């Protein structure tokens, strides 16, 4: 790992000191992108993170002001072997599940051009779950400081080992992209011993572009297996009660909270209109899970902005709604279960609330300033509002992590101020 880190740093130095892609000849090129970002939070009760599936800590409780939320560096090596055959690897250094910034191999694939309009990729790729999936980490390519967290952390599959097809037929002035994908993945997540596995990742991304308008529909699904010591402990608690034979509800709940190869679906539609001077874009998505450990979710955002010379002011509203029950009330009156019903309720309620994000929405106002070619300076204010479910204590966490005890007991408002410098060469 030390050698890889050193190599990554040396390559970054070369790419970024030149401020441009490096053509190594013989079909090899190196390109880079990155963000240096500083965020301040008004609330020290919990941490805000840009990606709760990846980042272990953020800004707020850990520090008032932090560099770790948005900062990252990416490097991509492309090799065009023949007219039809190319290879790409991309390393990305950003805060990981274990708080380190060790570079991760985000992409490593071979691409083959079957026809000019039909390409196939195989290796480590990112499944096209969202409209912006492919460049979520390249902040320079988006107007905002960061993609709306409410929407873009709903499907945790950042990369997979698999294949996808890129078919780009065009009919008159209408250009299509039909992108089916298939793969498997195994990813570490924040928290000691936590990870998840996804089998049978299967989906399709359909995009149509006509002039300034792009419409997009996506469907993705996977069979998810979760690994987490606290989850295992809760599940075995239910199993122990089930095995006493005194409370059949415990057995039903043990099955409902099973997390071995459980199907999770994410479907979404999106639109992007951009005439050069003005843009409006948004996505709407729904998540459905076959295990009660993963909540059903409705999430969406809409964003608009104007380009005035080098300045791009924008406004965004984004929303995340947990559609699953957040408490479990089984039988507590059954005298024959010797009080085990209350224990089942407590474990089940803990599982419903524990790992799942709760309701949150954000209004963001910001400005992008393209002060020189390939660099953008951005400033953004986010006003985040979490809400509780029916006023229940412990359901007001929103998408925050590292909460102090009591953070989720009432609706909370958090203001963030962010300044970032983005680049892509």
């Amino acid at each position, binding site marked *: 790992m030390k050698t890889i880190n050193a190599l990554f740093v040396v390559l970054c130095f070369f790419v970024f000191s030149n401020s441009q892609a490096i053509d190594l000849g013989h079909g090899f090129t190196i*390109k880079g992108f990155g963000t240096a970002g500083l965020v301040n939070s008004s609330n020290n009760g919990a941490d805000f993170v840009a990606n709760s599936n990846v980042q272990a800590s953020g800004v707020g409780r850990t520090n008032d002001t932090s560099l770790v939320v948005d900062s990252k560096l990416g490097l991509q090596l492309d090799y065009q072997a023949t007219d039809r055959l190319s290879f790409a690897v991309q390393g990305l250094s950003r805060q990981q599940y274990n708080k380190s910034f060790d570079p991760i191999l985000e992409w490593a694939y071979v*691409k083959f051009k079957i026809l000019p309009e039909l390409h196939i990729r195989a290796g480590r790729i990112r499944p096209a779950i969202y409209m912006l999936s*492919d*460049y979520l980490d*390249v902040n*320079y390519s988006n107007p905002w400081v960061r993609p709306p967290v409410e929407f873009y952390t709903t499907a945790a599959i950042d990369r997979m080992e698999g294949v996808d097809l890129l078919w780009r037929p065009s009919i008159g*002035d209408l250009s299509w992209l039909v992108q089916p994908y298939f793969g498997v993945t195994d990813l570490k997540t924040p928290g000691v011993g936590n990870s998840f596995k996804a089998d049978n990742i299967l989906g399709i991304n359909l995009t149509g572009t006509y002039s300034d308008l792009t419409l997009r529909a996506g469907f993705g699904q996977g069979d998810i297996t979760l690994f987490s010591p606290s989850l295992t402990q809760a599940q075995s608690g239910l199993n122990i009660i089930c095995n006493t034979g005194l409370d059949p509800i415990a057995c039903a709940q043990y099955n409902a909270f099973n997390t071995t190869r459980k199907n999770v679906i994410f479907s979404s539609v999106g639109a992007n209109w951009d005439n*050069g001077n003005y843009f409006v874009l948004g996505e709407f998505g729904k998540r459905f899970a076959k295990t009660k450990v993963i909540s059903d979710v409705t999430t969406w955002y809409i964003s608009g902005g104007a380009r005035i010379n080098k300045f791009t002011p924008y406004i965004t509203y984004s929303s995340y709604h947990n559609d699953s029950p957040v408490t479990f009330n089984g039988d507590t009156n059954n005298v024959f279960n010797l009080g085990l019903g209350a224990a089942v309720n407590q474990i089940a309620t803990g599982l419903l609330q524990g790992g799942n994000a709760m309701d949150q929405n954000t209004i963001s106002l910001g400005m992008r300033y393209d002060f020189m070619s390939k660099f*953008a300076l951005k400033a953004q204010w986010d006003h985040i509002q979490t809400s509780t479910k029916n006023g229940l204590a412990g359901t007001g966490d929103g998408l925050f992590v590292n909460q102090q005890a009591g953070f989720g007991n009432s609706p909370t408002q958090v203001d963030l101020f962010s300044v970032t410098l983005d680049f892509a060469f």
Partner: protein
Amino acid sequence: MTRIMPFFLFVALVLTASSIQGDVVVVMSAKSNVSNLSKNTVTAIFLGKTPTFPDGNQAIPIEQSEGQEAYNEFHRLVTEKSTAQLNAYWARIVFSGMGNPPREVANNDEVLKIIATNPYMIGYLEKSAVNRTVKIVFAPQ
């Protein structure tokens, strides 16, 4: 007054016509079978959204360097994107493995030289530089 009105109208028309006629034109090899392309098709090809011409043949766009007069005119009139927008757009495509920006050449002469050799290539240049090795497939208004 009624007699000079038509004259003014004529002058106004000539002036308008010459001012809306852009100085940049989209060209292909004279040997190419493609005759006319729409603005949307040219935009889709130069932004890598479509890899082919309407007849199904592969399309190979040729860009000029950032900062060239023809580059500025072409993107102002055809793709309608600023340099910053184009950079952001290509960053998306490149870092998502969806493709690469078009091959880039230095100036009008280089465009002529390269286009003339390959009937699948498409480029743009200042109208005054056009010669008989290429044909105009789209003239932005």
